[in-house]
């Protein structure tokens, strides 16, 4: 029996520079069982500002999950990952790396930086939607996350 104890909506930070992919993910998340609020930033610098609640992101909540692309302008996803996992306040937040690359070196390096999981974006739309829903299913229904 899956215990649906999430009463409040979950906050997701999506770090993705491709607006097309953002839109697709949002579409897929609309079908979610769990209510969710998705915040989007389009580069690594803004991601760190958001997470640290620095200006112009002073009033934002701390996200329950970060969906992170690797190839970003200014500061790329790998650096964001390293900085998050080095910070005692931020390292608890699960990071799902969702990226185009399927290259072995990328996968290895990402896990070396302690990402929680690595997913290659499916090309097929239906698969993509499925993957996003599975992410939500796993991290918010099955998995226990710490309280904020």
């Amino acid at each position, binding site marked *: 029996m899956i215990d649906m104890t999430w009463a409040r909506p979950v906050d997701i930070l999506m770090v993705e520079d491709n607006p097309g992919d953002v839109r697709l993910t949002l579409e897929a998340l609309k079908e979610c069982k769990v209510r969710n609020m998705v915040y989007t930033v389009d580069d690594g610098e803004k991601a760190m500002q958001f997470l640290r609640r620095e200006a112009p992101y002073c009033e934002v909540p701390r996200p329950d999950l970060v969906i992170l692309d690797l190839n970003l302008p200014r500061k790329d996803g790998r650096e964001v990952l390293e900085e998050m996992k080095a910070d005692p306040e931020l390292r608890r937040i699960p990071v799902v790396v969702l990226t185009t690359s399927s290259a072995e070196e990328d996968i290895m390096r990402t896990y070396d930086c302690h990402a929680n999981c690595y997913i290659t974006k499916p090309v097929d*739309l239906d698969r993509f939607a499925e993957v996003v829903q599975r992410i939500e299913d796993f991290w918010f229904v099955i998995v226990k996350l710490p309280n904020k």
Partner: protein
Amino acid sequence: MMNWAVDHRINHGRGARLRESALLLPALILLICVALTALLAETTGYTTIGAIAWGALFGMVLAYVVGLITRRVTLSRTAAHSWERHLFDILLNSIPDAIYFKDSESRFIRTSKAMLWKHAMNSEEELLGKTDFDIFSEQHARQAFEDEQKIIATGNPLIGVEEMETWADGRITWASTSKLPLRDQQGKIIGTFGISRDITERKNAEQALERRTEELAEANARLQEFAYIASHDLQEPLRMVASYVKLLEKRYRGQLDQEADEFIAYAVDGANRMQALIQGLLEYSRVGTEGKPLTPIALEHVLAHTLKNLEIPIHDSEALITHDALPIVMGDELQLEQLLQNLISNALKFKRADTPPCIHISACLEGDHCLISVQDNGIGFDMKYKDRIFAMFQRLHARSEYTGTGIGLAVCRRIVERHNGNIWAESVVGSGTTFYFTLTLAQGGSTND
């Protein structure tokens, strides 16, 4: 100048001694005869003068005969000597290699004509008595001098040393030089002698080849990089096209007319195919970029793994797969798996309509290589396409008949080539196909149990 004497002795000593002894012997004989007869006369009572006269006569005859004999001997010796000398002169005057004899101070005492011409000299006199310092650069001459001194001291020769020669006008030539200790007839080392062969042409060819190989390797690396990056970066915009066209389809299904649905279907299909092609291209370029060094791999295990991967299609097609014992080869495990998987899944795919596939894998060992064959009973192909099937993206059937991008065999060929082998196919239409490829056996390993 002391060593000039050495030179003379070497060249002229023997002959001179022979000539000297030729006169000495008859004179001695004459004297002895005269002395003997005088003594005899004393003891037997003949008059001394008469005896001496007879003795002298006898002695002269004897001396003449002996003289004739020794002259004959010395003539034949000098003739032989002069013949040998003639042969030696011919050798030194005609051979294109630079041959030289040097004394213990590395001064030239005899050289070949070729050596003179090499240094733009007309006669040996110009070179004799000089050293390398007079004809080569300071640095080269110093090295040569040191080498020769070492040879004289240790008696160890230097054979086949390749050296670069720099000339006054900046020209560079290459020579292969051998230097040996020069010993006199008593075995004492009195200098060195050497042969220097011009290898400039060969050396230039070698260097050109090296440069060419380097250029090729670099070009290859760039190409691989390009293919890899291209296929990677192409995926992103492709996903956008494919996904949004599909989203259109889903969102507006039934709201647009039938033609629109058709258009969308073609667009989606195109995007999907492009995706498959890019995946194929990525796979192809990964053979090079993600290839691991070759180590001993048991083909039996690779086959077992492959058959497990293909469990479902094997079951669905009711295929029968058999194999001989397979050897241990030098290879990259993942790539060998990919190779077998591509070949076997092809055999499963191109089966005859009502016949379950029968696939047999065998190995034939020869020396340090093995020939692996994958034989099937499928539809076969016309042998005029035997090379085309290995080309990238080449297909022999319409998409509606059989799926596939046409990259599988191109990947197989690349893998086999990376393993220093060859791959080819033989087929009869309607009967079946056999794919053959060669691999290198692992040292000391044949079939495993």
